[in-house]
């Protein structure tokens, strides 16, 4: 298994999967990311990240039902595993921690 560090984009994808709950498949993840971050998410990149996350054990996937919109091909639905949940929680914790250490003055100047 590769290192369990979470990259920035990986974190976003993981969070997106978590927000989409039962409807988290690649295209939907892309759309959601675009909507929330305002930057265009390429399908190839998202796929690569999903594959990497699965290798790291943060997400798991299963094939859904066939639909006509996809030319009869099934969707692969992703869901966050416990390890994934731990990873995003840890990331959040690290950030909160860091946030809390920033003196109020500095922030007010922004």
């Amino acid at each position: 298994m590769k290192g369990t560090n979470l990259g920035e984009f990986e974190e976003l994808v993981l969070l997106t999967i978590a927000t989409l709950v039962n409807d988290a498949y690649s295209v939907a993840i892309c759309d959601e990311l675009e909507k929330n971050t305002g930057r265009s998410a390429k399908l190839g990149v998202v796929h690569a990240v999903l594959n990497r996350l699965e290798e790291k054990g943060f997400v798991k996937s299963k094939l859904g039902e066939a639909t006509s919109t996809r030319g009869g091909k099934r969707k692969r639905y992703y869901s966050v595993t416990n390890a994934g949940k731990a990873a995003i929680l840890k990331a959040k914790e690290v950030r909160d921690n860091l946030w809390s250490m920033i003196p109020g003055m500095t922030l007010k100047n922004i």
Partner: protein
Amino acid sequence: MATHNNKPPRLAEKFLSWYCKPELLEDLQGDLNEYFQRNINTKGVTRAKLIYIIDVIKFMRLYILRDRAQTPGTGVMLYRNYLVIAHRNLIKNKLNTVLSIASLTLGISCSTLIFLRIQHELSFDNHYEKSDRIMKVSMSVRSLNTEEKTKLGWSDALLLDRLRDGFTEVEAVTGIAQLRGVQKVRNAAGDTFIEEGIFEADSAYFRIFNHEWIEGNPKKALLAPASIVLTRKMALKYFDKVTVLDKTLTINNRDYLVTGIVEDLPANTDLTFDALISLDSHFGDWCIVYVLTQNSPDLKLFQQRLDTLFAHELVPVLELSNMSGSYQAEPLTEVHFSDRKLFDPPKASKATLSVFAVISIIVLFVSAANYINFSVAQSAKRKIEVGVRKVFGASQKQLRSQYLLESVVMCFTGLIFAFCIILTISSQLVRIGLLSNVPELIPLSILFLFFIPAVLTLSVVAGWFPAAKLSRINLIRNLQPQVTGFTRLTKNTLVVFQFTAVLTLIFVTKVVDDQMQVLTEHDQLVKKDLVMVVELPQDETLMYQLPKLKNSLKSLAGVSHVSLVGSLSTPTRESDFDTFTVDHGGMQQIKMLAYVRIDEDYFDVLGAEIVQGRGFNASDIAKAEEVVIINEAMARFLDWANPLSQKVTYGVEAQVIGVVKDFSFSGQHRIAEPMLFYLNNRHPEKLFIRYSLAQPDNHNLINKVWQSNMPGQPLEYRMLDEYFEKQLNNENKLKNLLTFFSAITFAITLIGLFGLLNINIEEKEKETSIRKILGASMKHLLLLTWRELGLLTVVACAFAWPIGYFCTQPWLNGFTQKTNVGITNILIAFVALVICMLVAMCYQFAKLRIIDPIKTLKQE
């Protein structure tokens, strides 16, 4: 929006499914489809398709790519496995492996040899830079009476100027002519040798033909009179070194300045010279004419213009002597395959080459047949292996590749061995005439590369049948290891094929050998090994010595007859010919006839019998031009009932005083041609000495007499039978090659027979044991296999006889005296095969004898 166009691009889809891991494919396709549909609605069909294609390419990431090595049937691992198993299997059946490889090696070396030979013949005169623009112009003459056509290697020397002046497409013209007879060449130190290969050439020669120059300037070498250009071997012979520019060489008492040295000419050229001397002023009547055209020649147009020229200039002259003729232009590279011409080196025939090509393919297949036979015969042994592999899920295709790989391994081992053998023994092969020159390493390695696809084909051919057969073995039925009828049919077909090839080759070789025998037997000149042919120096000052020399030689104890012979008058030489006026059918007619110049002892020396009239005698010398002797063929040709009353006019009218029994004089196929014998010893070329007995000291005695009469002249001689041997060179070569190929095929077939018997004995060990216990005699046991093999041999004979018969007929038709192609030839071949089979039978006998039922029949 048109819905029928809403499909994503097919090619991109296919590409995706080709490279994508199967487990990821569906999801990806789905995603791409979804995007595609969306893009159609927002961006239009064309853009959507474009985006689809780009996305497919973008998806090519490492984790998506299918791992091809893991795909069953195509992995490197699997091939390694195949190789290991092939290796194990080959090691396991050592004997058969060795036999298969041996026969493949023999077969491949054979065809390589033939290939090298064909390549050599095809490369004749290809090595000149301008080969494709050079043409040779030769002349042929035709008698208007008899329509008999004679092709000459030469043209009239006047053609040179006519070509130079009248033909715009011609860039350069050169004439070259061999000095007639032999030349006496002396170097500064006084060493003298007799040379035959000196040509005179005009200065344009080196403009047309490029040679490798060691020293000298090709542009100027032949400009000055009395210049000579030497080949390397001549330079070494006379000066012991190659850098001999500006040295002097004396030819027939005239000094020549060496103006250039070129490398020796390659073996694949018809224009061979040892030295070229510059032309004095112009050629005699004849010379060999070469033309260099400006652009690649338009042969048809050129020939037309030559025809016009001939009709204009030569036909009027020739008509006076009742003759006609024509010029022929031939591209230089095709001269070697043209018709035989007078005064021209022997030519190759494309027919013979193709016959040899066919033989090489047959030999190759005979050797492949051994491999097929062995593998099929062994298939019973490998059934269990195949069964196990099938149980573990090996597909037919995989099994096939396994067995094909084995065949490839075998064939390539054979190929490598074959080339190693040829490389090591090439110089010996050249000596016995199977190769024309020692192949160099680099062309040979190119040839090796060329052979790889050929051998690959061979291995597929050889391996396909066993592979198909073994891979189709039925799992359930392989518990009963029995030879099926199909296998037997294959084996028998292959054996019959091999036997037929062998028998046909032996048959043909025997026919050629018989024909050679006929040629030698029908030669009327007896004891040619007793006639010594001495070259006379072409030196006017020594000519007066000749009668004295002749007399003192005659007085030697071991010498019975001595004769002085004029130029072109040695048997086997192509004789001179000219036009003579003779009586034919009551009319005086002009005929083209061959004639030789001899002296009064000529017929005694050759042992030719005078059947009518008398031979020449000393009293005829005074009026030598007025008497002539003819041969029987001449009397027949002119329908002379009483030849002795006839006259022949050649300037002077000559009385026929005798008729000599026919003896073949020249020509490849030794037909006794009509011939005139004139008495003339003014310019003798050779001295014939007939021994009364072959004694070892003859040569010494003769040499002594020679030295006392011809001081300082080397005694250069050959025996007459050597001339005849040389004349039969082509037939001899053919015979040697055929003998060689039949021997090889024979060996391969024997290897096959031996291997098959061996497998048969091994497989039937138990059967033999039971038969032995039940009281079968050795005779019965042997009969079991040999009944079938005997039948196969007879069948092969039935094929081989007609094939051999029809193959040899066209060749035999070229001879007047033909050998009988009877049933004996095939019988001899048959007997040869049977004798070898008997040897094989002895081996089998010994093997069967030692089979011990107690050891073979046991509980396992």
